[in-house]
């Protein structure tokens, strides 16, 4: 028996830390790591509600599995783009990559 708010507060904290990381970091790889934290917070919520509702089809857990898969794809593509940017611009600081800014 675990009270649900404890789990939800943990995931809210993880999400808030991820938001801070995305906003405050300028290294693109660190921004990707912070995004992983936020995705993990969402997954914790999905699992908690799946267990709370005793879902017969286990939708929450399976959906969390899909989120993990999409996160893996996102990191793969994201790092490919980061490496490409580094090769062209010699920097991966997100505030210096402003070619498309107006």
């Amino acid at each position, binding site marked *: *028996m*675990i*009270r*649900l*708010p*404890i*789990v*939800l*507060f*943990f995931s*809210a*904290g*993880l*999400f*808030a*830390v*991820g*938001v*801070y*990381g995305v*906003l*405050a*970091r*300028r*290294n*693109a*790889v*660190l921004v990707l*790591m*912070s995004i*992983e934290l936020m995705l*993990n917070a969402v997954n*914790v919520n999905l699992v*908690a509600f799946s*267990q*709370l509702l*005793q879902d017969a*089809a*286990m939708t929450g*857990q*399976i959906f*969390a*599995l*899909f989120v*993990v*898969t*999409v996160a*893996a*794809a*996102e*990191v*793969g*593509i994201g*790092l*490919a783009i*980061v*490496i*490409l940017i580094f090769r062209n611009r010699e920097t*991966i600081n*997100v505030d210096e990559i402003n070619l498309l800014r107006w």
Partner: protein
Amino acid sequence: MTWQEWAFVVLGVVGLGAAVRLVTSKNVVHAALYLVVSLLMVGAIYLLLGAEFLGWVQILIYVGAIVVLLLFGLMLTRAPIGREALDNQQRGLSAIVALGILVGLIFLLQDAFGDREITLRPTRIAEAGEHLFTDFVLPFEVVSFLLLAALIGAVALARKEDAE
């Protein structure tokens, strides 16, 4: 508090502490190692909540694959060391936004789910596999196609252009 709640609080505090160190550390490799701790704690929380398959998947995919990928990324981009090099100028504003989100979420969640309790029931891997390949077989195929596309995309993007 039950012992499950104590176990959850311990795992959660360690996970959150590692997450905070991840977004404040001055060294990118240390940040990646803190990410490992944080993800391991989340995996342990899945196991505690009874999501057995997801817990092991978390450790395999996240700790085993994604963190190694991120470390390769750090290695290939020669990331600098030092807080000023890794953070931008909006640290205070970011902290305010994050704290606002945290306080708002805690208030709303306490209001909406303050009295709910999870009765822990372990879910077997066989059960998860059965649902994955019957009820969710179409999303499963879509995700596998997405992974294939990501694989080809990453190779096509990161390949060195050689003179042809």
